């Protein structure tokens, strides 16, 4: 009985981390589908979400909701600036150059964050208290529920956006074939900018809802970003249900591994899963293989 209770506990915390990974993974795949770029700076927007909210809360004495909204707006502005002034002007946009420039961007954002806010870890207060709820013998914090709810809303909203709005359909057209999209009158550059906008907004939101559980500091973006990427790889870079399953699977495996094997290797588990999937099924678990044209 004790053992199964523990398993449920691990699974619950795995699910809430997994929801975060899925949200971050969405950010990766939205940009990847519109541009073919893996944005290595994705994790920094997650960091910016948490840190900016704390900044608006404590230094400007704002209430939580306006602070969070302002933080998402500010992080999104950083994402737009990055696309406009670093990605778009790039003349030789080879994959190598794109990897390097997004790494440069991530270092720059992280460095500036460190200069502004220092190296301390900060805690964001929970959205609605810390009184635990009990579910099948396992404890659940209200913040976990917030995470599930917000992730669910974000995913449904993005589904509706990509399937039913004209702009969302245009973005999907870009991901299928950029030239064909521009031939039917879609402004591809605008779609690229929009993909950076949406994904930095989503990333910073993920950063805000996880911050009360895990604390935040200038360098949390590396790990969260990489795990979001793991989720995206497992999910096959989709913007659909595959991504959600990818994130949740990663979260649960990681949490079970940490609980049952060793907590100090928790981060290593995610990367071992990443390597195994890249080696065995680089197209993701749910996709069929595509042939590359040269």
């Amino acid at each position, binding site marked *: 009985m004790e053992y199964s209770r523990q398993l449920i506990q691990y699974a619950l915390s795995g699910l809430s981390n997994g929801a975060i990974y899925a949200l971050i993974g969405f950010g990766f795949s939205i940009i990847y589908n519109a541009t073919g*770029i*893996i944005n*290595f700076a994705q994790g920094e927007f997650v960091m910016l979400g948490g840190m900016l909210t704390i900044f608006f809360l404590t230094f400007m004495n704002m209430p939580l909701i306006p602070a969070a909204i302002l933080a998402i707006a500010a992080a999104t502005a950083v994402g737009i600036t990055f696309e406009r002034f*670093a990605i778009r*002007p*790039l*003349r*030789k946009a080879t*994959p*190598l*150059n*794109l*990897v*390097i*420039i997004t*790494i*440069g*961007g*991530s*270092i*720059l*954002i*992280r*460095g*500036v964050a*460190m*200069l502004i806010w220092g190296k301390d870890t900060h805690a964001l207060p929970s959205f609605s208290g810390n009184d635990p709820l009990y579910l099948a013998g396992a404890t659940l914090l209200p913040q976990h529920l917030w995470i599930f709810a917000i992730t669910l809303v974000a995913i449904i909203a993005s589904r509706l956006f990509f399937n039913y709005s004209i702009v969302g359909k245009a973005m999907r057209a870009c991901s299928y074939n950029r030239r064909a999209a521009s031939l039917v009158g879609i402004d591809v550059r605008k779609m690229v900018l929009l993909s950076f906008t949406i994904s930095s907004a989503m990333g910073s939101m993920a950063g805000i809802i996880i911050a009360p559980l895990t604390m935040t500091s200038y360098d949390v973006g*590396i790990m969260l970003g*990489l795990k979001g*990427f793991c989720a995206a*790889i497992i999910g096959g870079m989709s913007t659909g249900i595959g991504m959600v399953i990818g994130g949740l699977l990663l979260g649960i495996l990681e949490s079970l591994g940490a609980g049952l094997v060793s907590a*100090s*290797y928790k*981060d*290593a588990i995610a*990367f*071992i899963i*990443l*390597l195994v999937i*890249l*080696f065995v099924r*680089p197209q993701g678990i749910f996709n069929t293989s595509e042939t590359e044209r*040269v």
Partner: protein
Amino acid sequence: MTMTKGKKNLTTFLFFAIAVLMTPLFLAGNYLLNVLVFVGINTMLAIALNLLLGFAGQISLGHAAFFGLGAYISGILTTRYAVDPWFAMMLSAISVGGLAFIIGFPILKLKGHYLAMATLGFGIIMYIFFNETVALTGGPSGMSEIPNLLVGPLIFDSDMKNYFLIWGFTLFIMLLSINLSDSRIGRALRSIHDSEVAARVMGVNVSFLKVQIFSISALISAIAGSLYAHTMTFVSPASFGFNFSIELVTMVIIGGLGSIYGSFLGAAILTMLPEFLRVFQDFDIVIYGLLLILMTMFMPGGLMSGIRWLASAVSSGLRKEPD
């Protein structure tokens, strides 16, 4: 007056080697000598990465792991098992090269972003391993009292001696790399960089060649790691993390992809920069980020191509003047 390309390369290298070997004469007792020892180690690492990144066009964001493995294998063998330092260095180079050869096959099947992420993941796994296997590596607080290298009665324990030790190795590796880049293998590697499919069509065994160069690159990094361990006599995981992998990539990019002297230039700049930027502590990471972005945007060929462009502009300007 016409020199073959090979001869011209050799003359350039000789001038460079003489300059390197003369430098300490002016710096006896200067702390800069110690900085230059690090420049030597980083030059080795940057060249190793450049063979992969610049010649074969394959990115690695986990090269610090090979450097760390080299350092730790040397450190563990000499302190815990009393293995002779030179022998330990050899063992570590061979085993790290072998490891890279084995993991090279699945890793180098990946391309572009996926390759970047896989090597990054490997680097982070190794970093966690260095930190967590406390019984073996000493964990986060590191491992000390690693013995110096020695030849007969000569112990490499001062900045001056270490300078010649490290730069001896660095110059040797530079010479090998210059030769490699002008060889059949070098040309085959560059053809992979330009187009993997075209190279394969022309009969280059692409996948094996990539794994080979990956393994050589890891082996050189491991030698640099061993030398680092034996000259510093102390290693800790902090030197082998993700940030250092990125710093190595920055060195190669700044110097210029595919340029051996560029790797030296990149290593020298990035190693000395923090020394001069002490005043702006912590600013260095911001500057690396800016450098990466600006170099990729405005000088994708790196400093060496910038210098070459400047030189040709000046010389063509001079030639025009007499008219």
